């Protein structure tokens, strides 16, 4: 095994790790409301979502290799890497990709620890932007596109991030209001069964769309790395094993269920009733599909969060926890720069050490950071058993000492 192939292997493993975090970070987008309203049992919901993500990923027959072109200039428009970056066996390009992926993963893990639904695509783009700035300078970033279409960091990332939660929120608000008007006066046990199926249907659509959209990004990145190192030349197709690996990674991640984020989105933001859950999921599904049809890139996370907020505003008497919403929006704002900083730092470290050793150090930092986050998360575990507990502690009448597992759950959203 040559040095270059070890670096390539590290990039592929890291990309699959990102795909995995992308899965569990976004389970909530499809299933949080379904779990919160008990339309599906938590385990059933994540299993269904995982399977649909797997199916969705395999549906991506035509994968665009140009995924990074939206934000950075490391590829030509036909998907091949820039020649200047592959002159030395592709190591310059591989380091940028590796550092960018690490930036995305670290940010995804931190926001998961805090239970904040932040956009995985923003984290990936942020990491790549940071690594590119460090490696190629400001000019290496596609800030604004060429003015002929919606493109660049501004057009593909920033503007949609501002607009999409608002759009989804308005749709969900209108939907919630209409459903409540129409079904007013019906016995709840009669309507809830209907809303249950409405929720399952719309949540399934979101899961399927997520599989096709998000797994593709990692497939594109891995194939780009393979082309850079000279192990693949076809720009029209991707290796089959890449598709299988990415599909499995995102599906397993989804099945793991990012319970912390599911809890925030399903219980923390709004107390969701079945009718609201259906309105929110329908809004998410419609907005995601419509925007992808119109070529308006947006983040599933932003749409899902906007929908849940809208459903809270649309039901008379429902309460929205604006403090939680504020924390989320703050996380959105810093996702891109924070992942970018990590990406840039990783590129710096990798470049300073240089060569295979540099890539190994970057990978070691990723493993160490992941383990640290994992151990920290064990202090306040959230899983399928307690994901639906009340958000506000119900004034514990002197919490019995023999039930220590309950205490951390309520503490988890205080500001950990």
């Amino acid at each position, binding site marked *: 095994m040559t040095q270059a192939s070890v670096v390539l292997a590290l990039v592929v493993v890291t990309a699959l790790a990102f795909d995995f975090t992308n899965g569990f970070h976004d389970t909530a987008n499809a299933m949080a409301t379904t779990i919160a309203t008990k339309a599906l049992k938590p385990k059933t919901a994540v299993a269904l979502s995982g399977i649909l993500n797997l199916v969705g990923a395999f549906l991506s027959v035509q994968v665009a290799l140009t995924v990074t072109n939206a934000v950075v200039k490391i590829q030509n428009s036909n998907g091949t890497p820039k020649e200047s970056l592959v002159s030395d066996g592709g190591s310059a390009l591989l380091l940028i990709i590796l550092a960018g992926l690490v930036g995305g993963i670290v940010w995804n893990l931190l926001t998961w620890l805090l239970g904040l639904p932040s956009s995985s695509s923003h984290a990936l783009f942020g990491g790549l932007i940071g690594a590119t700035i460090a490696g190629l300078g400001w000019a290496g970033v596609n800030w604004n596109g060429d003015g002929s279409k919606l493109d660049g960091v501004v057009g593909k990332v920033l503007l949609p991030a501002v607009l999409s939660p608002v759009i989804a929120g308005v749709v969900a608000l209108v939907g919630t209001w209409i459903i409540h008007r129409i079904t007013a006066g019906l016995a709840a046990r009669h309507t809830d069964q209907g809303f249950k199926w409405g929720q399952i249907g719309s949540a399934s659509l979101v899961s399927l769309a997520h599989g096709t959209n998000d797994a593709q990004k990692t497939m594109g990145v891995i194939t780009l790395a393979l082309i850079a190192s000279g192990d693949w030349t076809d720009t029209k197709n991707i290796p089959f094993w890449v598709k299988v690996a990415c599909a499995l990674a995102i599906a397993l991640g989804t099945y793991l269920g990012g319970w912390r984020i599911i809890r925030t989105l399903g219980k923390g933001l709004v107390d969701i009733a079945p009718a609201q859950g259906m*309105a929110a999921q329908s809004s998410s599904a419609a907005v995601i599909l419509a925007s992808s049809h119109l070529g308006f890139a947006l983040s599933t996370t932003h749409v899902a969060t906007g929908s849940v907020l809208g459903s809270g505003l649309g039901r008379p008497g429902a309460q929205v926890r604006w403090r939680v919403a504020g924390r989320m929006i703050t996380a959105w704002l810093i996702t891109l720069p924070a992942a970018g900083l990590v990406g840039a730092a990783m590129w710096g470290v990798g470049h300073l050490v240089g060569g295979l050793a540099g890539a190994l150090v970057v990978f070691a930092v990723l493993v160490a950071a992941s383990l640290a986050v994992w151990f920290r998360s064990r202090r306040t575990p959230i899983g399928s058993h307690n994901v639906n507990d009340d958000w506000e502690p119900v004034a514990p009448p002197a919490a019995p000492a023999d039930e220590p597992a309950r205490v951390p759950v309520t503490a988890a959203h205080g500001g950990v």
Partner: protein
Amino acid sequence: MTDNLGFALEGAWKVLFAGLVLGAGLPLLFALGIRSLAWGAGGEAEVHESGVTGPKSQPIGTVVGWVLFAIVLLGIVLGITFIVASGFGKALSFEHIYPTIVDKH
């Protein structure tokens, strides 16, 4: 920057419109379907004064309800078609009003 803002606002209006039609319109039909079923079932499905029997069942309500559900189902099938088509590098075209599958440009 200003170019992008223009494109984004233009896209946003379209997404909002389509989102309202599909994302709020289909739930509207679905809710009407539930309402119709309840009307069709009569009795305890609707909230009524206690002590008296509920409204009589209306079979036509059941029929209307299922017709509405069928329309919603068509909307979902359209969504799945779109996802599958885009995976194969195709897109849905609405130029003939009814959707057709075309090559993505």
